[in-house]
């Protein structure tokens, strides 16, 4: 299985409300809420930890779910958020500055 690295875009606003995470893309105002499992992945999306490790370390022990199921769900979740520019996905680790530049979009210096 190839490694996938995920990082939160800098063009988002986010806050936890009673266990759920609200995320809004500040450019197009797309609004999402993440359940507890998705929240666990979201908070661990640092650009340098492989998704498989996030799932094994932050999801499986805390939620009753097998690694296979968890990884399949996580990949789908990551794909959806990436489509909306809320998560950056790469097959190699991402530095914080690189993530910032990628997500600042049209018109950014």
């Amino acid at each position: 299985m190839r490694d996938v690295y995920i990082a939160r875009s800098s063009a988002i606003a986010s806050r936890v409300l009673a266990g759920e995470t609200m995320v809004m893309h500040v450019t197009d105002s797309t609004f999402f809420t993440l359940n507890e499992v998705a929240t666990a992945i979201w908070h661990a999306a640092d650009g340098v930890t492989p998704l498989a490790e996030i799932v094994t370390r932050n999801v499986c022990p805390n939620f009753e779910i097998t690694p296979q199921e968890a990884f399949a769900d996580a990949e789908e979740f990551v794909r959806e958020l990436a489509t909306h520019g809320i998560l950056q996905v790469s097959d190699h680790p991402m530095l914080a500055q690189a993530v910032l530049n990628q997500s600042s979009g049209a018109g950014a210096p």
Partner: protein
Amino acid sequence: MSLMYEMNNKAFDHGVPLSVHMDVTYRCNERCVHCYLDHDDHGEMTTAEIKGIIDQLAEAGTFFLTFSGGEVFLRRDFLELVAHARKLLFNVKVKTNAVMIREREAQELRRLGVEQIQISVYSHRAEVHDAITKLPGSWARTTRAIRFLKDQGLKVTIANVLMNDNFDDYKGAQALAEELGVSYTLDPTVSPKMDGDHSILSLRVPGTALPTVFHDPSLVGDVAEYCAPPSAPGEDVLNGYPCSAGHTSCYITPYADVFPCVQFPLPSGNLRQQKFLDIWRNSTQLEDVRSIRARDLPTCSGCGHVGTCSRCPGLAFMEGDMRGPSTVDCEKSFYRTGVPSANMRRRGLEVPAPHPMQQLVQIAPALVQGL
């Protein structure tokens, strides 16, 4: 039900201050004829104080943070404050007259990830706008700034206040917004000044002029639905709360005073003396505001409009009783639907009466009051 609506309900149930409006200064480079503020600096918060409050708001669960004033860009640290809020992942909105926004500021607002910018424009004609702001050249500078912001891909809304001086221009201003590719809002509310001076209320358009606006589909959408006579309020309406003020939102002044809303000047605590959450959870004033249900309102609970009226408890408070009717909203309900309000019936009026100006509460920053 939209996701946002669901989250609002959740914040309501958990008592989370989801939205906070913070005025970072009352100083301004314009002198708008309808402005209710005292523009002198009576000791506004320092950069460190505001950052500390922003930290507390993040902890309290605030998601939407609106920076306003006065003119926010008169604070040299304004972009630093925005950067701090964005680092804590707030959804940041900015209200400004935009006079000081040039390409560099527009780029910075974009880079920092500000979600929305609301800009006051009172007419499509420079001379009418400048006569209201009393700053020659302001229309040209403001509209140029809107173009800079649009070039950066930022979402901009033109906010217009409907007054006698610009009544004939509200369609022109709407067309200007369209031409610039930005949203447009129009509000006929003029509030009394903070020092209790009510002379600016004479700028308000007379109620008899409101039907023109209320019957304009480009502003209200479906006119028949918007102007329909109200249906009898059900139990859900009577058990409902007046608005979000004090429930999921509040207002912070440049002097660290906390009010339920920017239009509800009930001093509820000061952040130089108390922590935000202490005020939010324990202030007797906020508890009082939160305790009110529509059925507790002596006049409004018996009014057919209560389910659809825009009744603002803050304006009612400024008239003397937060549980009373808000005359401005009675007027709007009447001229929108043609149906008299309970307030009018109680006073034996066939058309809304002029505003009870003598009863207006005197408001001043807590610091000035010596609290």
